[in-house]
């Protein structure tokens, strides 16, 4: 819980007309606008260092031209967006929102672990195990749901790897399979 002095609550239903007319929720908008502007300003500070000004080249053909246009646009419009935000104080709802943003990291980690494991163990076995574990994590306990997730995993692998021939490398563990089975697994699963 953040310190009390940091939370400035509006009394009752005293939301202004600007707040009522604002498109989308107000929670979290301020931090997003600040981070966006700061990032744009940081990029602007690097403009001279990260792009080149080439001699004997027209202004519009300079390598620096488009990065400059885009970053100045980001600073200008991002700044105006921040300035025009109807509420420029952090609220209790903002902290709740930041927590929601932070907790997505869990799903990112699930995704990245899956990405790391596929080339090691193999696409089919990892997907077959990953789906039911993820289902379990989300609170589905029925056998039917877990089996459906396993079948979904198998269907995805067969559709993309075996039928559509999408480029996903065979797992390192497939090397230990006997002769013909090895090449069959590498090609199809």
């Amino acid at each position, binding site marked *: 819980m953040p310190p009390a002095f940091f939370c400035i609550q509006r009394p009752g239903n005293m939301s202004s*007309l*600007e707040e009522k*007319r*604002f*498109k*989308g*929720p107000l929670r*979290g*908008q301020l931090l*997003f606008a600040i981070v966006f502007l700061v990032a*744009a300003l940081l*990029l602007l500070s*690097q403009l001279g260092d*990260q792009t*080149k000004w*080439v001699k004997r080249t*027209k202004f*519009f*053909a300079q*390598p620096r031209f*488009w*990065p400059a*246009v*885009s*970053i100045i*646009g*980001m600073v*200008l*419009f*991002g700044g*105006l*967006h921040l300035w*025009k935000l109807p509420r420029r104080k952090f609220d209790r709802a903002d902290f709740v929102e930041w927590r*929601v*943003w932070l907790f*997505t990291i869990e*799903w*990112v980690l*699930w*995704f*990245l672990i*899956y*990405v*790391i494991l*596929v080339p090691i163990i193999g696409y089919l076995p990892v997907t077959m195990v*990953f*789906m039911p574990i*993820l*289902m379990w994590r*989300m609170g*589905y306990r029925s056998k039917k749901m877990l089996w*459906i997730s396993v079948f979904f995993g198998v269907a*995805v692998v067969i559709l*993309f790897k075996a039928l*559509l*021939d*999408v*480029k*996903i*490398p065979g797992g390192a563990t497939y090397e230990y399979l006997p002769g013909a089975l090895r090449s069959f697994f590498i090609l199809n699963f």
Partner: protein
Amino acid sequence: MDLILSSIDILARWDVLLALLAGSVGGVLIGAIPGVGPAVAIAILLPATFSMDPIVGLTVLLGIYGSSMYGGSIPAILINTPGTAVNALTTYDGYPMTTRGEARRALSLAYSASFFGGIFSVICLILFAPILAKIAPMFGSREIFLAALLGLILVVVAHRGQTLIAAALACFGIFLNTVGLEPVKYSKRFTFDQSWLSGGVNLIVVVLGLFALSQAFYLLQGEDEKTRLTKLRGGMFQGLRELIRHPRVAGVSGTFGVLMGMIPGVGEFTAQFLSYTYAQKSSKRPQDFGHGSSEGLIAAETSNNAVPAAAMVPLLALGIPGEALTAMMLSVFYVHNVVPGPQLFQNDMDFVVALYLALLILNVLVLVFLLFATNQLIKVVNIPNRFLGACILVLSFVGVYSLRNSFTDCLIAACFGIFGFVLKRLSIPAVPIILGMVLGGIMEVKLRAGMARVKTPFDFIDRPIAMILFLMIVGVLIIHFLRVWQDHKELKEAKWSTKHASTNFGMHMSRRKDYLLRERGRKVREKHLKYNPRSTDKR
């Protein structure tokens, strides 16, 4: 006639027909599941289509694009949740019909209206194709640059109430496109000496992050929604008969769809808005709109389904995508070295007509499929949201990893996934980023080429089409600023009206003071003081 025959020849292959079937049925299914839009599906399937023939790959994607809106109307009508974003207007009149016990009538009307919209636009465009083929070569570098700029401005302006952040995000998209090695002078731009950045930021990685992964995260952190479906009663063909009774609404809505679809950056929402407003204003029963009006449903569904075919016009004729889905399709062209633009219309007209014919066949397939399979299809609405999230997560992996088998790509996509998730939570549109990336690249190349032959700034717009485009840009900006000014005035008036008498009195006094201090006020004072001037009055 020869043209159509050679186009049919392109399509008469078993893999193209299979792609049509898969695209149409898959698109309907994807549209019918709330939470999975065509953008997610196209993003995931994009790398898989790279290994196919251009016509096969494009048919699958076009199938999903064209048929998802049919499917999207099912949950919009039955459970008041639009299956795809463009079906939001369908809920206005579709769901009240369901609550009245007329779900089947609403569905059949939506299918018939969608079918009419789809067929109407394809026929319009096949008829217009020869004219377009004549106009397209008149677009040089300058015109394409101006058209891309117009598209970008329209996309930004279309997000009413969020224009500033939409503009900032479009600029962010342009910036992302500039990262990496500059193609002419070979100088590094914003690579921070990192090898993985020197190749630039891949559009497909960004698309998959912003649309697919972010949607997966969004669904995974949410709750499963409980839905209750009503039983369908009545015939599915009554909608066709009802549609015939409203030819004017259907025709005008289809025309709006075609016109708005052709303008890059405008798309379904504006077409729907215009058609719905027209239908309401010209209706004998305008009070029914929003309470289950059949005309409202026809206007909404006809106009949105007329857009996909029309949206292919700027993409094929100029190489300028008008929205996120066509921007994704552009990458399929690039991968196969088919460069969309005026040359495509001149040299490969049969390819263009083949795509339109594919859309025509697709609409028939989808209608037949829906008329007979709706009862089974509505069950997909019940798929739990978080299960869908897990499915999208696994499918996104195929999309990102199959590109280059790179872990870094997956990491970048995951970062964009979080970014897209935050944007979704804040109801900020992600589309300007994608269009900024695609149109930014086009604008950079075309401006460089266009400026090479320009001496004075006026030379840039001295050709008729360039001048028209320039005037359109100026016009759009003027209309936008007038609208902003109007909104500002309305807000001020609304604020004043909520004040009570004592503050109003103070406001009157302050306005009076302002007026008197201005030039006119000075003159009035002078006139009043003429007969007894004060010795201390300054002039």
